[in-house]
């Protein structure tokens, strides 16, 4: 099995030679993933917080739905969004299919339930007595909410890293909505699946290693932010 050592060798080559196609794939991966993550965070963090913090009728049902969506197959998300953004679909006039923004829509939907459910989970895992004590000590509801957010800020960081990992490694949405277009919507994962279908296994492994390296760098950065935040 020379594939693996060959792959390692090629991965280094791709990075050191500043290979155009590889860097374009890295760029497409990072920009679509981070854009999707930002959108999912803007929508998901407040929603998740509400779901974990407030009590209202239908809360359990909503939570159940969000938890179920954690298991949403990426290909199905791709298919549903595809139907909406194809030229003949309801959002057809925007020409989103086979573009990065089209891909971002699918990836945001993929990341959203992760952020909502896990944020709610983080809020719920806080000791209930904290909140009661703060209230008896005369804190206003706003102060209590702010305190809660402060307490779970590192959990939220973890939630976002998890969502990032899910989006950056998925291939179904990127392939269906992006179309794996060279120098445009070809991401690391669709490039890997292309190289595999071409029988270039070593090249596929090389790209996979580069993807892992990126994930490592992102996690390393976040760990660093976290340490700085604590200091």
């Amino acid at each position, binding site marked *: 099995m020379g594939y693996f050592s060959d792959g390692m060798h090629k991965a280094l080559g791709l990075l050191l030679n500043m290979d155009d196609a590889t860097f374009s794939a890295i760029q497409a991966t990072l920009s679509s993933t981070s854009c999707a993550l930002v959108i999912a965070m803007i929508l998901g963090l407040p929603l998740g917080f509400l779901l974990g913090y407030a009590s209202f009728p239908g809360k359990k049902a909503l939570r159940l739905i969000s938890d179920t969506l954690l298991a949403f197959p990426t290909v199905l998300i791709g298919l549903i969004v595809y139907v909406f953004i194809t*030229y003949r679909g309801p959002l057809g006039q925007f020409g989103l299919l086979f573009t990065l923004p089209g891909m971002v829509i699918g990836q945001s939907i993929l990341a959203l339930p992760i952020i909502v459910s896990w944020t709610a989970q983080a809020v719920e895992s806080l000791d209930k007595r904290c909140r009661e004590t703060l209230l008896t000590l005369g804190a206003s509801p706003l102060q209590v909410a702010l305190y809660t957010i402060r307490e779970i800020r590192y959990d939220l960081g973890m939630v976002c890293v998890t969502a990032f990992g899910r989006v950056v490694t998925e291939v179904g949405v990127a392939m269906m909505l992006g179309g794996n277009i060279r120098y445009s919507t070809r991401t690391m994962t669709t490039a890997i699946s292309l190289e595999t279908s*071409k029988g270039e296994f070593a090249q596929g492994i090389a790209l996979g290693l580069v993807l892992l390296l990126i994930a490592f760098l992102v996690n390393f950065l976040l760990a660093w932010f976290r340490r700085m935040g604590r200091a």
Partner: protein
Amino acid sequence: MNHFGKTLLGALFALSCAAPVQAADTLMMATTTSTQDSGLLEYLAPTFEKETGIELKWVAVGTGKALEISKNCDADVLLVHAPDVEKKFIEDGYGIDRRQIMYNDFVIVGPKADPAKIAGKTTAEALKSIYDAKAGFVSRGDKSGTHSAELALWKKSNLNPDKEPFYISAGQGMMATLAIAAEKGAYALTDRGTWIKYANKQGDSNPLTIVVEGDSALFNQYSVITTNPALCPNVKPSLAGRFEDWWVKPETQKLIEDYKLEGKQLFFPNADK
């Protein structure tokens, strides 16, 4: 949210959500996997872009899906290889201006032991022997051009293997289908380009070999088609026209002829002069 969080979020946003700059003239092409996987498109695209000033983008899917994408107006032009299906597509009014540009051929590959004894037979006889011997046969099963060619061959032999246990419908690309055939010691129909790449990778340990080739029934014609602008107002007919003219002109035809994979010519230009 703390200061670092804000900086991080801002940086992410700036990095990612800036609108991509679109070139003025872009053509979206839906094509079959073989033109991409063989490397032909990457070889031709730079010349096309230089000569016409049009940026060519493509999605590589099976011929069936490529036609479907064009029906939905999501591609301007097509490069596909399933003549019967294409003609129906044109008759139904979805596409216009179909021009033949090149061909290559299919081959039937199988285990070196050749359990159904089909070496040297015609395609029709070979399929009959596979059917009678209940020897394994792996089909693409994905509505690709190769799949529809295979179905047409079975039909021409008046056989229907669909429900037979020896008939494996893979639902995967050509390279994966060959890998399955090798694992299972089965026969398969493949385009020659993918076969050359596969055989080259496997080297001496390749359990498969070509058993039937050179039959006129195995001819594989590639054509370009323009999505009907009357049905899809977003299609750019003038760009599509330049695209089609480019494929059939002698210089491009020569380029196609010169393209070699592992030292072998892969596509044979045959545009109408």
